[in-house]
């Protein structure tokens, strides 16, 4: 993935190291190697690699990690501008089984390609 870099300095990811209890979950669930464990503490090593999927924050037992999760999908964002965020979420969720399965909270897919395949 190293030759895929998206816009730098945009991720909403926040990490408070003093809250970390060193469970290692964030390092495991992150699909971009944003955290690495070092001496019983997670270290934020590649913030710009973060795609804001939300997996780390959801699975951090102490809320040491915060991020505004979502899908980085232009078509979905446009839909949100047109219909309003909540409505867009509902409309898209109805098309995407993966999304429905997670209770409308956030798309569990990491790419629109997956929803597109489930559509229709």
């Amino acid at each position: 993935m190293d030759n895929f870099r998206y816009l730098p300095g945009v991720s909403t990811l926040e990490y408070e190291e003093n809250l970390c209890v060193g469970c290692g979950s964030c390092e495991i669930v992150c699909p971009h190697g944003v955290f690495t464990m070092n001496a019983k503490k997670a270290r934020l090593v590649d913030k710009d690699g973060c795609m804001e999927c939300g997996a780390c924050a959801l699975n951090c037992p102490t809320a040491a990690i915060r991020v505004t999760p979502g899908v980085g999908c232009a078509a979905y964002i446009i839909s949100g501008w047109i219909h309003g965020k909540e409505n867009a979420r509902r409309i898209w969720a109805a098309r995407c089984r993966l999304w429905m399965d997670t209770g409308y909270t956030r798309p569990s897919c990491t790419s629109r390609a997956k929803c597109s395949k489930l559509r229709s």
Partner: protein
Amino acid sequence: MASSCPEEKDNQPSPACSCQEAPAAGLKPDFPVLSGDTAVCCGGQPAEPCSPYEKPGLRLWGFVEDFMDTPAGPVPRVRTHLIRADRLGTVFARVGIGRDSYRIAPGLHSVGAPDSESPVMVTANYKLSFDALRCSLSGISAWILVVDTHRRLILPQLSATGVVARQVKTMCGFEVVWGPVHARHLKAFLDGGMKATPAMRKVTFSFRERVELIPVELNHMGKPTLYLLPALFLLSGLGQGFFSVSAAVSRGVSALLAYLLAVATGAVIAPALLPWLPGRAFALKGAGLGAAAGALLSALFAGQLARSEMLALTLFIMAVSSYLAMNFTGSTPFTSPTGVEKEMRKAIPAQAAGALTAVILWVSTGFMGG
């Protein structure tokens, strides 16, 4: 299945359930409780009648009232109160005797008279958890699914955006192990003692994976194309005589070609060549490719198109290609929503301005040349 539970026989009359852990007095020292091991039914106790549910080599747990016949085979129906054996077992477990082996067999149990519509309660196979649950269910008909808490669920890593591992553990007792991102690494993951290498933990976006997505991108374009094609011919025919069919056809064909080039660059070439295209913003990658395609088109039609027309078509290709490439953000596994929104706030006005300029140039050339 559940019917093969380690079983224990207890013919004591059952007092009403108090569900308390008060030590029961007057216990017989030979009381068979803790072990889930098998013991021969009725062996050495000829005075007691056999339960019809007993099987050779197994003992019936005292909490089993009888068995229900279900399409899935016999399911033990359990009491909703504690009998003496249960209390004694609780005391032993509390003081640490045999605590770790104080288990019941995983599987389906029932209370009351459940049917296919009845709720299914999930609990751990630790007997104390099981006792606590069944004692709260008196008068209720339900299924109890006892799961082995030592079991582990291997979930795909990417499901971590919607699954909280520690909640799974508290809610049903299963330990979540995050498997690799790709199923093709599962074998190596299991062979390695359920450890994923850093490479298995990362998403990939290879040339092949990107190319596979191209049909999806093209699939989204049917409807817009249907609206766009008549508009292209209409705008191409506009001129001094208000509308010329021959101009609509001759100029319309070059406009159509420009559109096809825009689709090719934005929805096919941009995804395929993604990591090698200059710029981080997808809109920029698409616009760059579009500019190249516009130059190519201008060179091909050098004798037939006016400069303003070449410029118009190039701008048009750039705008469309940029928009399509921007839409590819959602198909990738690495774009952040904040980043995409930031990119869009700049790119969409630029794309709109480019397209509008293209239309003005294209139509005004029609009026001047016609």
